[in-house]
């Protein structure tokens, strides 16, 4: 999509060069001015690009191929040399899936992260949309609210984790507030049932605001005439919202859902910080399992295979979302 406009200036450049070539030919001083100029332009361009190309090639391209290639080896860094094993790492993982996935940490983590992603993405998208729509109706005080809502998005995952570790404490603020309405709250992070929902809630809290900004921008760009036409036709507030605004926001909803999904699938920081996958693997996420396999068990090849599977899952899920949410793209 973005690649096309990038090509547009090409036409204008070549016409400029044609004019220049004529001028140079008239001079008669340089025999092949165009190739010479082009060569020096190319050289200059690549000099400008050198640092970026270094990073792009080493830390993005090479690293991606390395990761895929490594999944075909057993690598344990230092004990034995890497050994080619073909699809063995994948075979092990898929055998676990087809025999007893509930015994395999990796597949447990995949189930956890699917639950986590579904709830978090739905929660943060709805919350972000509601916040943006409420803000949109305001005439005054909009800036103050927007700024305040954005502050959780600034807080790092580590600080958020520390703060919620304290709030989720069995004698913490959350259980105190619940006790006011006569509910005795659980030991959130040490209860296998409640630990994952606790992380979900915290994640929605810290991410909704950044997605709210996308909806605010999209709402501002909505064609006013359509909304006014609906109003003139006698549609009420909720009809306008459901029949006009939400359908017009589909591309933005897709963007928010896709970005949220990609982020949620890779959840690591807070799980590492607060529960380290526990209690009894209830908050184990794929990234945590990949980290443990590589850095605690020295199974780098196996960890790379897990990364590849996770990547494929994220990729397929994003494609499906695009198909079902952003229907405008296909037509």
């Amino acid at each position, binding site marked *: *999509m*973005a690649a*096309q406009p*990038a090509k547009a200036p*090409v036409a204008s*450049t070549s016409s*400029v060069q044609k004019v220049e070539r004529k001028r140079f030919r008239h001079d008669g001083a340089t025999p092949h001015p165009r190739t010479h100029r082009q060569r020096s332009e190319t050289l*200059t361009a690549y000099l*400008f*690009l050198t*640092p*970026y*190309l270094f*990073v*792009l090639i080493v*830390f993005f*391209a090479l690293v*991606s191929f390395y990761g895929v290639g*490594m999944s075909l080896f057993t690598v344990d860094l230092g004990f034995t040399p890497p050994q080619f094993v073909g699809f063995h790492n994948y075979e092990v993982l898929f055998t676990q899936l087809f025999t007893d996935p509930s015994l395999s940490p990796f597949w447990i983590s995949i189930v956890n992260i699917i639950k986590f992603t579904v709830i978090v993405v739905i929660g943060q998208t709805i919350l972000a949309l509601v916040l943006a729509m*409420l803000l*949109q*109706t305001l*005439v005054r005080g*909009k800036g103050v609210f927007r*700024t*305040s*809502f*954005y502050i*959780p998005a*600034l*807080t*790092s995952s*580590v*600080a958020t984790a*520390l*703060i*919620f570790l304290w709030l989720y*404490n069995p*004698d*913490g*603020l959350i259980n*105190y507030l619940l006790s006011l309405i006569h509910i005795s709250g659980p030991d959130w992070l040490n209860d296998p049932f409640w630990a994952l929902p606790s992380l979900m809630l915290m994640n929605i*809290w810290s991410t909704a*605001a950044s997605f709210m900004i996308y909806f605010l*921008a999209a709402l*501002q760009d909505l064609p006013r005439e359509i909304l006014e036409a609906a109003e003139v036709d006698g549609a009420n*507030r909720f009809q306008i919202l459901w029949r006009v605004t939400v359908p017009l926001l589909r591309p*933005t909803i897709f*963007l928010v859902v896709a*970005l949220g999904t*990609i982020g949620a699938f*890779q959840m690591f920081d807070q799980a*590492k910080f607060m529960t380290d996958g526990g209690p009894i693997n209830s908050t184990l996420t794929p990234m945590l399992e*990949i980290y443990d396999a*590589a*850095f605690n068990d020295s199974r*780098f090849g196996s960890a790379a295979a897990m*990364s*590849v599977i996770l*990547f494929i899952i994220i990729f397929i899920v994003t494609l499906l979302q695009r198909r079902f949410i952003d229907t405008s793209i296909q037509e």
Partner: protein
Amino acid sequence: MAQAHLSTNPEAQKLAPASRRHREQRLNWWQIIVYLFLGIFLVSSLGPLVFTLISSFKTMQNVLAFPPSLFPNPWIWSNYTDVLSNAYFLRWILNALIYAGGAAVLNVIFSAMAGYALSRMHFPGRGMIFTVTLGVMMIPLAITLIPKFLVANTLHINNTYFALILPAMAQPFSVFVMVQFMKTLPRELEESARIDGASRLRTFYQVILPLVKPALTVVAILTFQGAWNDFQWPLVALGTQDMYTLPLGLFFFKSAHYTQYNLLLAGSMFNVIPMLILFFIFQRYFMGGALGSAVKG
């Protein structure tokens, strides 16, 4: 927003004054409900942070008291002095500053240079580099975590600032933002500069850079924020306590002071407050930057 309201009002006035009054009354009820909801969200988004800040001045018994008290009794500063008396704490802040500052400065320079070449120059390979840039933006960063560690290991840069800064010093997303910004500048700018005899490099830093200051600021802020708050890559790439950045330091600080929430909360403020200060100075760039990836081609 306000203008839109003004423009619709006179029409409504002309059409039906009676129904307008009726609507205005309904609007008031509607607005009360809106403000009520916004108030609830306001408390839940600011509450945890404000309560943390206040509680970082409490004693340990006070911070863990049940029922919790809103205000510290007594107010104490010693949590902050205790945190700073940890032999490594200042070093962690310094390391985080080096990582975030180094990455921000280099990324602004290098991505502007790359963006300039990709948006304003004509050379073979340009289309491919731009396509690859868009492509790698889709790769989830976490997937490359393990191989990135092994590459850094091969380069013998693990547990150094190089391991932190090198991968962050020219980011595809920043290059993309720069290309989007620079594409919109008129071509005549460079042509007149060239006629005046300025070299490409001079055109770049004397003509182009001053015109894309907003983009430079957005990239600088986003890079700083990303590196300052980064936890995963330092956890993987760093090995010794003296090299830890602040988020990683806080992780180990947490293991060492597991139930001393008074110290943990004070420690977390060292991570949060600098970001808040930056946010209040450069607010509009933050929100614009958050939108960056939605910039339409």
